[in-house]
């Protein structure tokens, strides 16, 4: 057996995947105790955005519905948490189920008219949703604090843990992210997930095969909104402050950009995309305030030409080529990973 054949063996691949997962988990658990609070805070941001990007990925990457307005759900999650904690004095963990429920219901609500809107029109409506969010937040200042926003007390670790604030927040985000990723992975592999992909590929064919379009599409919207809402709650916890200016159209577009760069139709792509979203500005900002925008804009266009599957798709393709028997031309679709998806 050559090493290639050995690597192609399903059992080996399974063990390899488990090993990679355990290693990643180990690094993720070790990181907050090694790096400076500033770095840990950055990791936390990556995890938070990864959850939001993953949510959009379920909708756009796996179900083919475009949303340019996920920042709105993110904002609603963030504000639900802030208002309940600040105005009603709720303990921070209790706001999670409420925020999830609200964003799920709202996503479901938006998903219903979305059934009648195809492609471009859905993009239009969701874009409008993102644009109207900040003015509406400013308007209902009784709950939202208006343009001044809301300050909340950042959750503190129980004394017995001995964790610093940044470590505690990071671990909270990590738990949320692991839950979110596990759920997404199982959802995509489930009956509903296969129906979602079928709809993305060909709505008419999926309907003919007995997929309940309305149910699956509205559910996808609701799940996806709930993910954005969870990210919003975590955002409130870590920043300790919400204001309408944090949830402009830029947020929605950034989430989409991260999704595309990370990889449409890939679960792990969300993490890569979120890392880009957090680190690209911190690298490019030294150059110019506008540099991250220019890089992201150009990257988005180039991605569509050269690597429509994003970084994750690119990695999968390279891995496939690595494992392909030497000399024989690698078939374009030879993905080593069993992950669903591929080119959108």
């Amino acid at each position: 057996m050559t090493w290639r054949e050995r690597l192609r063996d399903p059992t080996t691949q399974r063990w390899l995947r488990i090993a990679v997962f355990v290693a990643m988990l180990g690094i993720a658990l070790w990181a907050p105790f090694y790096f400076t609070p500033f770095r840990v805070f950055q990791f936390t941001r990556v995890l938070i955005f990864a959850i939001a990007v993953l949510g959009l990925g379920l909708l756009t990457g796996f179900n083919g519905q475009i949303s340019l307005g996920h920042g709105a759900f993110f904002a609603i999650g963030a504000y639900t948490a802030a208002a309940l904690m600040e105005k009603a004095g709720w303990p921070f963990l209790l706001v999670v189920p409420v925020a999830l429920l609200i964003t799920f219901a709202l996503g479901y609500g938006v998903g219903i008219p979305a059934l009648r809107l195809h492609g471009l029109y859905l993009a239009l409506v969701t874009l409008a949703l993102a644009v109207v969010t900040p003015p509406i937040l400013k308007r209902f200042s009784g709950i939202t604090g208006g343009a001044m926003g809301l300050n909340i007390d950042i959750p503190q670790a129980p004394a017995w843990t001995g964790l610093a604030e940044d470590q505690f927040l990071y671990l909270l985000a990590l738990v949320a992210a692991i839950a979110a990723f596990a759920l997404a992975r199982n959802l995509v592999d489930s009956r509903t997930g296969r129906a979602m992909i079928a709809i993305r590929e060909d709505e008419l064919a999926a309907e003919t095969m007995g997929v309940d379009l309305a149910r699956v599409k509205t559910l996808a919207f609701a799940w996806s909104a709930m993910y954005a809402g969870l990210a919003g709650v975590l955002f409130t916890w870590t920043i300790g402050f919400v204001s309408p200016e944090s949830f402009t159209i830029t947020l929605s577009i950034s989430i989409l950009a991260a999704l595309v760069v990370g990889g449409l139709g890939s679960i792990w792509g969300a993490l890569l995309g979120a890392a880009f979203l957090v680190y690209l500005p911190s690298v490019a900002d030294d150059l110019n305030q506008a540099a991250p925008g220019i890089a992201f804009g150009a990257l988005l266009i180039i991605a569509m030409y050269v690597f429509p599957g994003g970084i994750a798709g690119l990695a999968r393709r390279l891995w496939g080529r690595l494992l392909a028997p030497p000399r024989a031309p690698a078939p374009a679709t030879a993905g080593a990973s069993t992950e669903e998806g591929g080119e959108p």
Partner: protein
Amino acid sequence: MELFIQQVISGLATGSIYASLAVALVLIYRSTDIVNFAQGEMAMFSAYVAWALIGAGVPFWPALLITLVGSFIGGLLVERVVIRPVEGRPELTIVIVTIGLFIFFNALAGWLWTYQVRGFPSPFPQRTLELGPVRAGLPALGIVAVVGIVVGLLFLLFQRTKLGLTMRAAAENPESSRLVGIRVGWMLALGWGLAATVGAVSGVLVAPILFLSPNMMGAVLIFAFAAATLGGFDSPVGAVVGGLIVGVSENLAGTYVDVIGADLKIVIPMAIIVGVLLVKPAGLFGSPAVERV
């Protein structure tokens, strides 16, 4: 009553600006089936070019002319370089590419001219005309007149010239057009160039009102989307009528509906977009979408 007429007139002025950007959107949608999410940012960029020229000492009208020509070439280049490789690809791909353009132009303007908000000279004298009890600001009338001229010229181009006929043919039926020797690709690029030019007009007209900044066109784009949706995405006449309706209803609702007031005006285009798409997706003047299975 006077307040009402006042509001209608200023509504028609802002409506004309929306109309011109909506016409730009429609020009592109008709020829390439693409909704250009970057249209507003391209218009903003053109406005900056005009501003830079004026700042360099060029008088207003020549600066405008140079800007329009530059925008035409810019639009043409964008189609040739960025859009052409993804023509005919899935909608999602195209939306993402135009969003990429959106981010790119926004950031490029920020890079070149910073994010500072700047004043923009109005080409019209700040006087008011009094026609009996009705008073109308000259800037408002000037905006309506400029947009009227631009739309009129476009009408002449498309209805009365051979080039216009060719462009319409290329949009209507690319394959047959190609067979009779029309260079369809170039016609589509011309459409993008024209759209960028009309968009530039809207950018230059709106800049004195909203002040110049890279994020100037965000809300305007939503209003223009509402106008195009209301009029029907494939109808230039619809875009103009839709723009005027959106402009007037925005102003009236802002004045007379307390809940909306000045700061929630942006909800109106949203309501129009959702309402039209749910009730009559083709809009007032558009042709219903037909899909071959």
